[in-house]
């Protein structure tokens, strides 16, 4: 199913304005054939604009869009070989599921018999057999999304674009659909881009993640790359559950620091121990007080007050329980230190000394 050749997409110095608002600011990006890419960013960061420009729904004010090496700026969206799934699904409310999926095929003047075959093939693929006579209003949210997906795929596009595909769905079904969609797209091997503001979604579904902010691309990479090697201060703060620490030099073993530097701490870099427990680096651990303990299912999130900040740490359920108000050791393995432009990963000084000793 789908075409065998896998399309590449390239954006070159794309600029797009809405009035005075700069939605895309010199966006350059290459997407390899067959990849499943997430455009991730806060709302208003220009991710949907990029998607709509690739689809031909919007037109860049400057720069070039290439599909398979061909500039498509002046080719109408309907001739770019794309399938588009709208955030609202945009199913034709007055046409049946069958007619919705058949819509693009009829426009291509397919013979009725082939249309029928294709529609039922897709209905089977999305697991919606027997729903062909229903109207979109009679479907559940998840079914609508699947039908929208099938409709976009019907004319065998080279590229699939999805705008916030899970935004309109209940949290529970969303998780189910995420893995379904990933499986589906991987099976088809079609180059796909989807927009999301939810990092968990991007991390779970996408091969590559493009982080956007203020109309610019901050970083492109796999989830692991974004996590371990964030390229910009924005990515550090946006990815993961980070807490900014302004006075990070007050923490033991993080004494250096310029005026405008901020420490960014993630829960997984923090270890909390009872005062009675053995602490390896006791001379570089700080004293904190447990403010709150939140049960997260597989583990506990411990919120600790320390040097005027409240930071989060992860603690295993199997460890000795803590109490609220309890005085604890807090050891920080590493933190990101950012200023306006650069990112630096700073290790706890005692870790290095220790490794020297060993």
């Amino acid at each position: 199913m789908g075409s065998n050749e896998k399309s590449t997409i390239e954006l070159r110095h794309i600029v797009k304005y809405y009035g005075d608002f700069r939605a895309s600011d010199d966006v350059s990006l290459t997407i390899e054939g067959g990849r499943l890419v997430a455009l991730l960013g806060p709302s208003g960061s220009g991710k949907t604009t990029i998607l709509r420009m690739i689809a031909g729904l919007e037109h860049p004010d400057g720069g070039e869009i290439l599909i398979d090496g061909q500039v498509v700026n002046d080719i109408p969206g309907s001739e770019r070989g794309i399938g588009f799934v709208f955030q609202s699904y945009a199913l034709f409310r007055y046409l049946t599921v069958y007619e919705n999926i058949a819509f693009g095929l009829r426009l291509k003047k397919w013979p009725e018999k082939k249309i029928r075959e294709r529609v039922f093939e897709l209905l089977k693929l999305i697991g919606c057999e027997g729903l062909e006579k229903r109207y979109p209003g009679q479907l559940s949210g998840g079914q609508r999304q699947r039908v929208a997906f099938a409709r976009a795929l019907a004319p065998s596009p080279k590229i699939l674009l999805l705008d916030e595909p899970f935004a309109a769905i209940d949290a529970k079904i969303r998780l189910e659909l995420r893995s379904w969609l990933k499986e589906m797209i991987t099976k088809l091997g079609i180059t796909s881009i989807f927009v999301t503001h939810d990092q968990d979604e991007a991390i779970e579904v996408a091969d590559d993640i493009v982080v956007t902010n203020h109309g610019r691309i901050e970083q492109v990479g796999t989830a692991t790359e974004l996590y371990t090697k964030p390229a910009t201060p924005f990515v550090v703060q946006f990815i993961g559950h980070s807490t900014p620490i302004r006075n990070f030099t007050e923490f033991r073993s993080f004494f250096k620091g310029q005026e405008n530097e901020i420490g960014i701490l993630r829960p997984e870099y923090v270890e909390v121990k009872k005062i009675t427990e053995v602490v390896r680096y006791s001379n570089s651990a700080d004293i904190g007080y447990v403010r709150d303990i939140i049960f997260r299912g597989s583990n506990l999130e411990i919120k600790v007050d320390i040097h005027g900040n409240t930071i989060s740490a992860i603690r295993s359920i199997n460890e000795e329980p803590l109490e609220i108000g309890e005085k604890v050791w807090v050891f920080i393995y590493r933190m990101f230190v950012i200023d306006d432009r650069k990112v630096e990963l700073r290790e706890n000084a005692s870790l290095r000394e220790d490794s020297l000793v060993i």
Partner: protein
Amino acid sequence: MADTKKVAVVHEGKAGRRIAIGACVVFLVIFLVLPLVYILAVAFSDGWLGYKKAVTDEYAVKATLLTLLATVVALAINTLMGLCAAWAVTKFSFRGKKILTTLIDLPVTVSPVIAGLIYVLTFGRQSFLYPYLEKAGIKIIFAVPGIILATVFVTFPFIFRELVPVLTAEGTDEEEAAALMGASFFTIFRKVTFPHMKWALLYGMVLCTARAMGEFGAVSVLSGHLRGKTNTLPLYIELLYQGYDFTGAFACSSILMIFAIIVLILRSALEARGKTEKNV
């Protein structure tokens, strides 16, 4: 449902409720029902035969036909304009949209007499267009084209106004989706957009018909009041009334009144239909 109503905090007590409903009913009976009853009472004051004679009078029939002609033309033009303008305004963003909407809405905020006046100024003897029109043998004011133009003018935004909210609420996603699959304008319009607005369109057409049939002021200015030629039904009624033929005037009024009642019934039915359709 009944229970939640009882729980509702604002309930004014039975007396307040009765007084409020009573006041409304009295007000509406005096202002709306009584005039209707009165029309029928006078129309039939000379019995059925007198009524029949009045409404089948040669001039009455001609006036009715002219009214229908003006109504049909106004309906056709305003439907075309309404559909096009609503499409352009709701599916695209362009500069000057607000001005365009204001201009389309303008005719109903202008006094009908002034509407007539501006056509007289445009096509009348003092207009720079007049010599050309005369040479071409086209007579607009004090003739049928003037009456039709005036009718189009006073009903201009009715259909447009009904379509805009429906199309705005529908958004542009469905059209974009269809266009991305390569659908043409007429395909998108017919298959995707039209089903959304069919009830609103019909509703607008009903309103347009009602107003077109009854227009008096603007038509009065532009008509030469020629019996059997440029008299619409409302003008003919005026003529009869001023000739003290009250039975005739009210008999002809009853025709328009029946149309008005049909319009109201259609309106309620369409509104109910539109509402249930939205809930599907």
